[in-house]
Structures are given as structure tokens and as C-alpha cells.
């Protein structure tokens, strides 16, 4: 049997496992809380693995190896920014978010600032950015499956999307968490099985660094082979803020069994991310630069080329399928967040509840499932045309999310002295300026090329929240007491 035949067989088995997890998880779905936050039942080891799988997926291996092989270890250096961003969630956000008993980030915005407008605006930002990101990730998934197990791009997208839409729609967050754990295990097995073979060919850490630096001078320097200092600094700022406001992480804080587990999961998550980047990207990326760089047409082919070059066929199929399995570990989280923005934040919290419309939990559970299905179909259809613009916008999606939510989160959770108007000005102003700057940059305006839109959006959000807070009256009463119980 060829590598691709074995890979297809393994991948088929893996898809059956995902479907089975969805069916079992569906039996535990009775209320919205079951569906969106797994009834807040997630324990520490499960949460750590689910956190890790939600932010590092199959594409992180493929693109990480390509990026590090190409420009050097510098591409992994921003994990200082990842650690800093997650530290902010640990020290400032996690406990209060978990204790507020919301489901989503728009829940926080609406509850903390007592504003249905802010809840709705946040839901639109989360829903639109998650859906655009989802469209791009479905294309990434199709590409990974095409590269790794040899199915056609369209078939990879279709089969992958059908499976993850199925298990998310019937099993909610519980299915996402357990499938993420399976994907996490498959991905790590795929990476670890390569270890002895890579070591045999290129030696250990020091050997790889020596050889790759000789081949590509500057590869180990803080600026890599091609980055400027200003690019490096803005990369750090953007990733720091992106990790503070990383929706996949913040949403999972709500699902932890208690606030202690929510917080304790974070250092372990970031430690796993660091090990993943050092081994799965830095070491393997360096090895790819040494062993296969001259034989590939583009950096994206570095990982599959390395695997098929150094591993015997059966292990190569196992490694490639392991990484391919993790292709959907981010798409399912994004689909769940897009669905929650529509069914929970907009329909239930912005339309029904302010009007006193009361519905059964079974109604909202049904609506949630249909919403997931519709968003999944929309994203799949959006992923079919090869629209370069979507991929360009996606690269700025984290900047828009950061510009919208960073200051309302950090200021709203650390001080009571902030008004509804200040939060609205910061979120809307930050998102608007970042969006306009992004549009100008993509359109080719020269003035928008030097500074990243996220930096401008953040600066706007920061200035607005402090200036408007200084001239408006801080909120008082229940919204504040919910987040500052000891000081209310």
C-alpha cells in the first residue's frame, strides 16, 4: 500500500472517531449552558489539552515549519508575546470572566457595561471575524488534506467541513473539547514519531542550529534572515494583544469547572505551546531547511517533503495523518463562536430578553444547532472561490478583535471607574479605525503601509476609553457588583 492509501485509511478511521464523539456528546445536550459551555464541567487536564488544540492546529505545523524553515527561528520568537498575552488572561481576566457565568465575550461586554448595544456590536464583530477566519481555515484544511493525504482540495474541504459541522451541531462545546483532545493526541503522536528519524539525519538541537546557520546566515538571529526591527516589534505587539483577546481561550474560561481550574489551565497551556513551537516548528523547521529545502517548489511543501523523505511509508502515513487530523481543531472552535454570536448573543440576549420574550431551553438548543448548520454552510460556500481578499482580511482579523476588546477588558476588569460611554467609544472607535486602516492598507495606500492597523486601532481604543471615562460618570450598581463583588 502507498503512503496515501494508508493515510486515507487512517484518516477515515479518525473521521469515524470524530462522528462517534459527536453522537455521544449529543446525549448530554439539554440546555444552552450544555451546548455553549459544556455545562461548565471541564476539568484541568482536559481544559489544558483543549486550550492547546484550539490555538495550535494542523496548519500550525505546516505553516510553522514553512515559515521557520524560510526566514528562521525568529518566526517562533513571538512566543514571548504569547506568554505575556496569556499571563494577562491569567492575572486579570480569567477569574472574573468565569465567575460572571456568561457564555461569550459579548456577554461580558453587555453585562459589565450594562449595554445591549455593546453586546450586539461585540456579537457582530465576533460573528463576522470568526466567520471570515473560519472561511480561511476551511481552505487551510482543504490544503492540508490535499498535501498530506492526497485527496483533492475540494474533497478535503467538503468532507472535513461536513464532519466538523456535524459534531459541533449535535454535540456543542463538549464535542469540540473531546474531538480537540483526540486531535491533540494524533498531532503529537505524528510529531513525536518523527523525532528519532530527524535526530538520526541531522543530530540534536545544537547540530541543527549550526548546520542551518551555515546554510542560511542570520537564521538564528533575533531578526531572522529577512525581518526588520520595526516589523519584529509590531509583530510582538500584535501577538501580545491577540493572545490577551484570543476568543478560543477566553471562551473556554467560561467552560471550566471553577475559576481556579480556568486559571490553572493557562500556564500549562502556554508551556505546551512553547514545547510545540520549539520542537514542532523550530527544530523540525530547521531540519527541513537542511534536508529538503532544495527539493521543494514552495515552503508550504517543506513538512510533507521532510516526512516522506526520512520516514518509512507506514510511519510517514501515520505522521501525515496525525497532522491532518488536527486540521479541524481550530475550525470547530470558530464555528461554535460564530454560532454563539448569532443564536445566543444576538437572538436571545439582544432581541428576546430585552423584549421579555420567554422561550424554552429546548427552543434555544434547537436554534443553536440550526445556526451552527447554517453558519457552517455559509462558511463552506464562502471558502469555495479562491478569493485572495479573504486571506488578506484574515491576517488582520486578530488586530480588529484586539482593537475592539483589549481596553474594555483590561480596564473594565481592573477598575470600577469606567463608564458605558467610554467602553462603547473604545470598542467602536478602535474597531472602526483598525478596519479603515486595514482597508487602506489592502487598497495600497502608501500612508497605511508603515504601521500595522492593529497598533493604530489599539492606540485609538486606549485614548478613547481614558478620555471619555474622564468626562463621563462611571457605572454603579449591579453591573459593577457582578465583577467587583468585594468592592461593590
Amino acid at each position, binding site marked *: 500500500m502507498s503512503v496515501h492509501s494508508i493515510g486515507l485509511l487512517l484518516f477515515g478511521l479518525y473521521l469515524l472517531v470524530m462522528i462517534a464523539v459527536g453522537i455521544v456528546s449529543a446525549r448530554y445536550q439539554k440546555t444552552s449552558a450544555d451546548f455553549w459551555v459544556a455545562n461548565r464541567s471541564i476539568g484541568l487536564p482536559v481544559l489544558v489539552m483543549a486550550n492547546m488544540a484550539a490555538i495550535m492546529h494542523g496548519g500550525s505545523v505546516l505553516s510553522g515549519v514553512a515559515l521557520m524553515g524560510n526566514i528562521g527561528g525568529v518566526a517562533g520568537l513571538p512566543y514571548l508575546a504569547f506568554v505575556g498575552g496569556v499571563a494577562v488572561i491569567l492575572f486579570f481576566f480569567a477569574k472574573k470572566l468565569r465567575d460572571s457565568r456568561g457564555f461569550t465575550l459579548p456577554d461580558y461586554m453587555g453585562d459589565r457595561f450594562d449595554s445591549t448595544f455593546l453586546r450586539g456590536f461585540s456579537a457582530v464583530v465576533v460573528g463576522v471575524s470568526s466567520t471570515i477566519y473560519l472561511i480561511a481555515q476551511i481552505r487551510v484544511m482543504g490544503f492540508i488534506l490535499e498535501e498530506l493525504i492526497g485527496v483533492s482540495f475540494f474533497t478535503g474541504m467538503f468532507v472535513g467541513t461536513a464532519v466538523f459541522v456535524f459534531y459541533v451541531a449535535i454535540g456543542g462545546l463538549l464535542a469540540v473539547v473531546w474531538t480537540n483532545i483526540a486531535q491533540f493526541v494524533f498531532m503529537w503522536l505524528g510529531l513525536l514519531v518523527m523525532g528519532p528519524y530527524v535526530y538520526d539525519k541531522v543530530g540534536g538541537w545544537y547540530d541543527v*542550529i549550526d548546520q542551518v546557520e551555515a546554510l542560511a546566515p542570520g537564521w538564528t538571529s533575533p531578526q531572522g534572515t529577512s525581518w526588520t526591527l520595526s516589523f519584529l516589534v509590531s509583530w510582538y505587539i500584535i501577538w501580545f494583544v491577540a493572545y490577551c483577546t484570543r476568543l478560543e481561550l477566553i471562551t473556554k474560561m467560561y467552560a471550566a469547572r471553577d475559576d481556579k481550574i480556568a486559571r490553572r489551565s493557562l500556564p500549562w497551556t502556554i508551556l505546551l505551546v512553547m514545547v510545540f513551537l520549539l520542537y514542532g516548528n523550530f527544530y523540525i523547521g530547521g531540519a527541513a531547511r537542511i534536508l529538503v529545502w532544495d527539493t521543494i517548489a514552495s515552503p508550504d511543501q517543506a513538512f510533507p517533503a521532510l516526512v516522506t523523505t526520512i520516514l518509512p511509508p507506514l510511519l510517514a502515513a501515520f505522521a501525515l495523518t496525525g497532522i491532518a487530523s488536527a486540521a479541524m481543531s481550530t475550525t470547530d472552535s470558530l464555528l461554535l463562536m460564530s454560532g454563539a454570536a448569532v443564536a445566543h448573543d444576538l437572538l436571545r440576549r439582544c432581541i428576546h430578553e430585552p423584549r421579555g420574550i420567554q422561550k424554552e431551553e429546548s427552543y434555544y438548543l434547537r436554534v443553536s444547532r440550526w445556526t451552527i448548520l447554517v453558519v457552517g454552510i455559509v462558511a463552506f460556500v464562502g471558502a469555495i472561490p479562491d478569493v485572495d481578499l479573504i486571506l488578506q482580511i484574515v491576517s488582520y482579523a486578530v488586530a480588529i478583535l484586539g482593537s475592539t476588546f483589549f481596553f474594555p477588558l483590561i480596564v473594565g476588569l481592573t477598575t470600577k471607574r469606567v463608564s458605558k460611554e467610554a467602553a462603547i467609544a473604545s470598542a467602536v472607535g478602535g474597531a472602526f479605525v483598525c478596519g479603515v486602516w486595514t482597508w487602506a492598507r489592502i487598497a495600497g495606500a502608501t500612508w497605511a503601509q508603515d504601521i500595522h492597523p492593529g497598533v493604530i486601532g489599539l492606540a485609538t481604543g486606549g485614548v478613547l476609553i481614558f478620555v471619555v471615562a474622564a468626562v463621563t460618570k462611571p457605572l454603579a450598581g449591579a453591573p459593577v457588583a457582578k465583577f467587583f463583588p468585594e468592592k461593590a
Partner: protein
Amino acid sequence: MLGLPFGSFLLLFVLPGLVLVPMFYYSWLIKTGKRD
């Protein structure tokens, strides 16, 4: 220093470690009930 130039070594290991250590210490305080 793991064969890396000083700047890379700092950015790759020392500074992330300096952030990660207090994160684990805080986590341990939470686990042992010394911090709410």
C-alpha cells in the same frame, strides 16, 4: 547558550521563562488555597 546568539537566546528562553515562572507560582498559590 544553546548555540544561539544572545538576543535570540534571550527572546526564546529567558524572557518567556521570566513570565512563565510567576504564572506557575500564581497557579500553585491558587491550588494550595493561599490565594483566592
